[in-house]
């Protein structure tokens, strides 16, 4: 892509630091880059790398107590005109307010919290124009409708009269983009704008941003943690690690010849979980299935009360049937609202299904019908069937030490206590790769990845046979994701485990599972061998899902193919 050579934004050795107690957290430390019109610069890094703070520094909206302590942010809107050093402007004075939103606009990760819930969409867009004194109310409203049309919101006239909660996540992000474009900015900063969205919606939003960039000649600064997205949209890439730039290169060069060890690690992790990785796991030789699910359904009943009109019953899971064999990893993939988490909760009976059978063959060969068992009957099943949760910060009791957390299932089932319990906990910690001396610590002392290891140790405490992992790696950074998956795969043959792995991330599922079930609107639309599903999908929905996955390869930019001019 041809990029014009004049930089509109030039950041030179930017330093944004946060004084925390007596220490100085160098969130952004000596970061430099240039951004030109029509060009997309991606800043990529894991959580805590300082990529968001860099973006926020440009608009001087760094949260307290952070402060720009050095460097320059040179903004040259007009090549012949003067240059402003944004870093020198007072964050609350008029000059920066004129640039903020009007010249440089920003869109955020969570569109719901960035939109006011009590104002109509149209007015929220028009307000910026009126506030900057660019238009009167009537013209501004007309412009708002036009902007909604530009961001491809159907029926923009009516959409302008709606409230944010009436929009889906993708529509809200479109509205946010329309708002950002309202004053015809020259630079668009997008801070993880697609992270909270489903993969198909993400593809649409990325296409939209690309199209608008071409139409308006925008300079785009795109912040993301996803190497796939980077490969698909970037011209230049800035890799950040602990507040510093470790590598800065054109996208093709970076992907072809990464230099910095951290970049290489990041790239390897992304490729390992990418769709072009070596073929997925083969099928296990089926014997007798350990779990047989037939026509499972959960319908939330119609809710009627004295003052509320009855809502129709909502089916969350309908007619789901599958078998799971010993030693097998079954992946359940789907977008938000597809019912995959509800299905997982039904299998382990946190929720009670409204119809269907879940037959589980216990270790001693007995069959248990989970769908109808009571609490006492479930107890022996829950010793063999364990769960790993999505949020490692919420799934450990903050008032219990690691030892108490891991030992809890052993203690309440009356299996171990005292010194043998303590020994077993340390053995489990060793299994998940944590040193034994962390047993006396509290969960708050651990990072997300370490906490997830503790959760795994707790799940393993009772020598389970089946583990249901619900988005177990989604809250983790990409390098950690691979580590946790490898840990589980490593433990599997040693402990004779089977997994049901629920995720929205096809790459993770493909890496981890033998078979994949694709869920859509509460139903399994396709089920088959992992490799087959990914390489030769048969159902239209599966094809659509696969086509939306951003591949970590800048040579295959299929995602934006149709947006190219």
């Amino acid at each position, binding site marked *: 892509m041809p990029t014009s050579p004049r930089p509109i934004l030039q950041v030179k050795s930017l330093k944004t630091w946060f004084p925390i107690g007596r220490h100085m957290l160098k969130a952004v430390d000596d970061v430099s880059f240039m951004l030109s019109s029509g060009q997309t610069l991606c800043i990529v890094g894991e959580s805590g790398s300082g990529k968001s703070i860099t973006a926020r520094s440009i608009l001087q909206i760094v949260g307290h107590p952070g402060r720009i302590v050095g460097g320059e942010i040179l903004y040259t809107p007009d090549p012949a005109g003067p240059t402003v050093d944004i870093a020198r402007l007072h964050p609350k004075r008029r000059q920066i307010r004129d640039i903020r939103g009007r010249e440089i606009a920003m869109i955020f990760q969570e569109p719901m919290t960035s939109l006011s819930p009590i104002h109509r969409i149209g007015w929220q867009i028009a307000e910026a124009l009126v506030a900057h004194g660019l238009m009167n109310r009537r013209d501004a409203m007309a412009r708002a409708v036009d902007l909604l049309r530009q961001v491809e919101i159907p029926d923009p006239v009516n959409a302008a009269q709606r409230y944010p909660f009436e929009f889906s996540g993708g529509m809200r992000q479109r509205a946010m983009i329309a708002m950002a474009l309202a004053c015809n900015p020259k630079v668009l900063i997008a801070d993880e704008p697609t992270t909270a969205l489903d993969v198909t919606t993400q593809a649409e939003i990325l296409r939209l941003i690309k199209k608008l960039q071409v139409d308006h000649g925008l300079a785009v600064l795109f912040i993301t943690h996803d190497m796939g997205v980077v490969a698909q949209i970037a011209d230049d890439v800035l890799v950040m690690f602990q507040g510093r730039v470790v590598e800065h290169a054109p996208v093709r060069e970076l992907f072809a010849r990464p230099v910095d060890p951290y970049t290489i690690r990041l790239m390897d992790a992304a490729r390992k979980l990418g769709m072009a990785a070596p073929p997925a796991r083969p099928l296990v030789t089926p014997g007798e299935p350990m779990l047989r699910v037939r026509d499972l359904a959960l319908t939330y009943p119609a809710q009627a009360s004295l003052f509320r009109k009855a809502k129709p019953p909502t089916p969350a899971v309908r007619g789901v049937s599958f078998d799971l064999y010993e030693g097998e990893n079954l992946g359940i993939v789907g977008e938000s609202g597809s019912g995959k988490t509800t299905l997982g909760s039904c299998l382990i009976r946190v929720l009670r299904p409204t119809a269907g059978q879940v037959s589980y063959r216990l270790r001693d060969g007995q069959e248990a019908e989970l769908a109808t068992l009571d609490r006492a009957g479930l107890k022996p099943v829950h010793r063999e069937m364990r769960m790993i949760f999505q949020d490692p910060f919420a799934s450990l009791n*903050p008032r219990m030490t690691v030892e108490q957390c891991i030992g809890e299932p052993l203690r309440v089932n009356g299996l171990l206590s005292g010194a043998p319990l303590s020994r077993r906990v340390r053995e489990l910690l060793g299994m998940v790769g944590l040193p034994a001396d962390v047993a006396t610590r509290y969960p708050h002392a651990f990072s997300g990845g370490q906490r997830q290891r503790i959760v795994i140790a707790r799940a393993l405490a009772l020598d389970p046979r089946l583990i249901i992992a619900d988005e177990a790696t989604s809250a983790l950074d990409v390098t950690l994701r691979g580590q946790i998956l490898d840990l589980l795969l490593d433990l599997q043959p040693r402990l004779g485990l089977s997994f049901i792995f629920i995720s929205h991330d096809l790459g993770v599922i493909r890496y981890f599972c033998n078979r994949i079930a694709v869920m859509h609107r509460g139903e399994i639309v396709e089920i088959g061998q992992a490799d087959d599903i990914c390489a030769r999908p048969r159902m239209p929905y599966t094809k659509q899902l696969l086509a939306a996955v951003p591949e970590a390869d800048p040579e295959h930019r299929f995602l934006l193919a149709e947006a190219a001019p």
Partner: protein
Amino acid sequence: MSMAATRDTLATASQARLTWLRFRRHRLAMVGLTVTILLYAIALFAEFVAPFNPDDSNARLVFHPPQTIHFLDRTPDGLRFHPYVNAFLLKRDPVTLAAAYVPDANRKVYLRFFASGEPYLMWGFIPGRIHLVGPEHKEDTVFLLGADRQGRDVLSRIIFGSRASLSIGLLGVSISLLLGITFGGLSGYYGGRTDWAVQRVIEFILSLPTIPIWLALAAVLPKDWPPMATYFTITLIISLIGWTELARVVRGRFLSLRSESFVTAAWLDGCSQPRIIFRHMLPSLTSHIIAAVTLAIPQMILAETALSFLGLGLQPPAISWGALLKEAQNVQSIAQAPWLLLPGAAVAITVLALNFLGDGLRDAADPHAH
């Protein structure tokens, strides 16, 4: 302590300890804590702290004004530390015949710590005669905060009044807490119909106009009941209305905790219902409950003050801050003896201190809930 050592201590620090570390950084809350402890200590050792018996009246010292303490005494050998107050003389204006107190520069009443004064029975059974501060000669009188209509020492009365006022706060909150945790817990843990019913009851109670209800309930109390019985009944009346706020706090926390994955995990681990509630859920609530309780005590104290001020709470001879303020109900006595309003200052200081303390506790317990 080195950095690494600090990190290790923090890693093994329990939530209670972390809360305390955060609380200690909250300066206003630390002030609130100190003042609160001081106030309760004064109430506990009232007999010792108060210079006089609160019921000793003296018809010749009616509305005696407050006396200022002078710390340095001028003697022939120069200045020396010897606190005293100037005595007052009652003089009658020869024309109007109105009585007025004038300072008597010639007569000094010297004060000392741990003065031997009137005998008392601490808590009703420990005899003693030592007072924290008192005149050197026990037959002298000193009115640091003035005297009331019957010539009784206002300072001593405020100190003794704190007993009823502060303990009503604690006792009332304990009853409220019991009701609040029970109903809030039931409501939050079971949800559904139980929750609906409890919430409607709470809304009904909150919709009642409090003061008329208190009036009606207090009016039912027989006037000839002993002060102790009235005291407990008043406490009960106040807390019957005060528990609703606590119940809401507990319910809200239970509802949000119920959906936390660690509670689901505990259920899957095979924990029994009581174990889930008492081992996994309640410990996460204690700090919030302590904070809510601290914020509820001032409400109780204010309610008691209001009731007693209206003459429906504690009846003389029982002393509480509200009952003392009743003395200041008519304009004439305030004009003549403005120091009768001082029990109000005691109420304000207590309420402020407890509110600072409660705010600090709440912030420390849940640093993200803003």
